């Protein structure tokens, strides 16, 4: 989720992958639990009002995820898509989707969740004039341009998207502008949540006092201090809460949260501070967690510049990739909080295929030098890696530069920008030269999310200016596949093209390094870097 993306970029800590492999949690297990007791979770003050389509950072995102539940979500154990409010999402052509809802779902104010609850919420969220940060999530739907015209300052001509049609209370159809086989996979994103009737009368008021349909209902928001929720007794989802609610305690620093965790004033946190990485497994024993996340760190190239766009320059980029000693850097500088990458899709994500990068992601100084020479050398024999200085990236950027310098003799230095927003402005404004830090945190656990949104020609987050007809063609084929699984396989073929062109060098995957207090048990983290909230048991 972009939420996580924000935190990751800013704090340089965290995020997400399919947990399929190793949730090393669930220690201290098996005692009796009190299903009406609440537990506390480390959080940060939401940056926006609590409206589902307006949560773009973890602070608000994780609270909304618990207050709302959409058509589908992802099983925290396997990462697989599972139906929640949806009974069934069917399509014969990967373009029109027929949604059937389960009956019996209600909002926390008692009103029923109907097809209109979804369609009205989506139309409202997509509309430019409602200022929702996640509005572009609806751009696949036919008629999006009517409610959200593309030019800055243009006003919407309609209030509804033609692609959304309500058939009856439990049925509606979604028609997309083009085929996207994996569209249902996107529907687990928080922006696609339903909204109750009352919301539209007072969106601002609801932003301070949200009423959702999720496992937990809103109790109070003591700003900058805590958000209190309690279990909604009428929750119809497959993941019935085993606890009485979550108290989100706001922390400004991970150090403060970690100190509280150690003295049992906080029950679960999302990422231990860098200063505790070396010791947290000793401190917490079997309450320590080390789990993979669906997030990747890369360094990208400015392919829009002539010196990087020549036909042979791909060899230079491949050579630079081979000059980075990922194993050593992740073990020493990053203290095992990352694992070396061998592909552009993060570990464990649906469609992840290890080794797509081939030898190019394996450290080999001789081969690196040879490739760089064959490619005509690095312009001016020197490089800069632009990054944001407020995100804890300095250490590894320096390490990567050292590695490149020692292996190839290319002069390499870090180019820090004051903070995240300044770095982003320089990157999107094309005011940098050579290389920059970039990364991706999954919005949904599928490889398409790591590839289509980043490397397609003109994709919104294609900061490289990368454009490959071959990649685009394979991606489009994958979009038109018959099923999500075929789509994932198709994207694996597209990913292979990235190894030839190397628009960005994959460095490593993120991991969740966390822990929990002695008061709770059965804490497992999913690939989004979130605990399986409803499964946490409070010892009693």
């Amino acid at each position: 989720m972009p939420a996580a993306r924000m935190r990751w970029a800013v704090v340089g800590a965290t995020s997400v992958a399919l947990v399929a492999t190793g949730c090393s949690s669930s220690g201290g297990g098996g005692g009796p639990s009190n299903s009406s007791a609440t537990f506390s979770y480390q959080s940060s003050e939401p940056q926006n009002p609590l409206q589902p389509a307006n949560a773009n950072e973890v602070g608000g995102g994780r609270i909304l995820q618990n207050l709302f539940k959409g058509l589908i979500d992802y099983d925290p154990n396997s990462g697989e898509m599972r139906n929640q409010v949806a009974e069934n999402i069917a399509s014969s052509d990967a373009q029109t989707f027929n949604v059937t809802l389960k009956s019996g779902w209600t909002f926390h104010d008692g009103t029923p969740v109907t097809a209109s609850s979804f369609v009205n919420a989506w139309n409202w969220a997509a509309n430019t004039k409602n200022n929702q940060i996640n509005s572009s999530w609806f751009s696949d739907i036919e008629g999006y341009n009517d409610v959200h015209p593309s030019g800055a300052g243009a006003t919407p001509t309609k209030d509804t998207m033609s692609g959304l049609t309500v058939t009856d209370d439990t049925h509606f159809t979604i028609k997309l502008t083009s085929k996207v086989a994996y569209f249902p996979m996107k529907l687990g994103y928080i922006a696609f949540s339903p909204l109750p009737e009352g919301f539209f009368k007072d969106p601002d008021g609801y932003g301070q006092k949200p009423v959702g349909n999720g496992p937990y209902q809103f109790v109070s928001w003591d700003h900058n201090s805590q958000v209190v929720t309690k279990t909604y007794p009428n929750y119809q989802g497959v993941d019935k809460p085993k606890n009485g609610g979550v108290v989100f305690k706001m922390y400004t620093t991970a150090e403060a949260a970690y100190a509280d965790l150690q003295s049992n004033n906080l029950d679960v946190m999302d990422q231990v501070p860098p200063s505790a990485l070396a010791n947290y497994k000793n401190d917490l024993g079997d309450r320590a967690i080390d789990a993979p996340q669906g997030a990747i760190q890369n360094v990208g190239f400015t392919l829009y510049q002539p010196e990087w766009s020549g036909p042979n320059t791909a060899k230079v980029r491949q050579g630079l990739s081979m000059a980075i000693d990922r194993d050593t850097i992740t073990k020493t500088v990053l203290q095992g909080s990352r694992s070396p990458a061998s592909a552009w899709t993060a570990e464990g994500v649906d469609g992840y295929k290890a080794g797509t990068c081939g030898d190019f992601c394996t450290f080999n100084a001789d081969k690196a030098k040879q490739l760089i020479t064959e490619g005509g050398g690095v312009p001016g024999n020197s490089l800069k890696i632009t990054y944001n200085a407020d995100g804890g990236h300095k250490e590894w950027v320096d390490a990567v530069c050292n590695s490149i310098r020692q292996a190839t003799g290319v002069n390499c230095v870090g180019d820090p920008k004051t903070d995240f927003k300044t770095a982003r402005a320089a990157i999107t404004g094309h005011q940098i030269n050579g290389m920059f830090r970039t990364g991706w945190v999954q919005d949904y656990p599928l490889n398409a999310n790591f590839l289509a949104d980043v490397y397609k020609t003109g994709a919104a987050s294609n900061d490289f200016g990368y454009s490959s007809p071959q990649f685009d063609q394979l991606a489009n084929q994958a979009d038109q596949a018959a099923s999500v699984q075929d789509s994932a396989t198709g994207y694996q073929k597209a990913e292979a093209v990235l190894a030839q062109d190397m628009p960005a060098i994959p460095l490593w995957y993120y991991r969740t390094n966390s822990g929990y207090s002695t008061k709770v048990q059965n804490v497992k983290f999913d690939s989004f870097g979130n605990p399986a909230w409803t499964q946490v048991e409070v010892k009693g």
Partner: protein
Amino acid sequence: MGHYVIRRVLQMIPVFFGATFLIFMMVYMLPGDPIAAMFGDKAADPAQVAALRHKYHLDEPWWKQYFIYMGNVFQLDFGTSFTGRPVSEIMADAFPVTIRLAFVAFFFEIVIGLPLGLLAGLKRGSFADTGVLLITLVVISIPVFVLGYIAQTIFATNLGWVTPTVQDSTDITQLILPGAVLASLSLAYVARLTRTSIGENLRADYMRTAIAKGLPRRTIISRHLLRNSLIPVVTFLGTDLGALMGGAIVTEGIFNIAGVGNILYKAIRTKEGPTVVGIVTVLVIVYLVASLVVDLLYAILDPRIRYA
């Protein structure tokens, strides 16, 4: 005296406008686009960015933004933060917390700092004097964040006397540890300042006269020595009250207190103009009032100033 007060109050008006104007300009000049940054690593949607900019008047030139802002302030509307909350509400939450913390710290400065300085100043060269000098030197040379973490580790994590972070900021007892940490540096200065000032005045002519007149020791110290020695200390304490309120960022971070420092730090990072300007404006007023009080105290302590 009345004229003096009025003149001082009138002086506050240009300072108020000048300060808010400068702050407004500086926030505007901070690099980066706050709206685009809301979208994270994901590319911002230009149509939505334009709509949001318009909503927060960020599409206007900065001087116009200043006029819009000041116009609203005079209607007691401090604007809305990106979280959709009125800034006045945010300040109403944060200021009481920081004021409580600042007063706990201020209390320590006066109750511990002053007597320490008095003791050291009256018994110069004694064992107690050397002790005070040594302790204050140690405190001055350790950065506040180190002191904070040490205090947190010893008293919370190891001894378990208090919780590592403040759970409820309305509970004064929970503010004692962070208050002591926040006070530590200024406390050391107060002690040293008092010691020097007393040491100097002990040798003054009027002191010799007072002693020669055979006045009781109590009266000499409280009426003659303290009254004259406190002028530099009062100056320091007055400006320090303002510094305590704005400078609590580090302490509030370590002990996770949702005060002004915390909010201000976050607002500067997200370039949230209305919140930054609102808080700093109030801080400027606090400074102005504190220095006014200091100047009035001067007049009480030293009649020569009153009539000058």
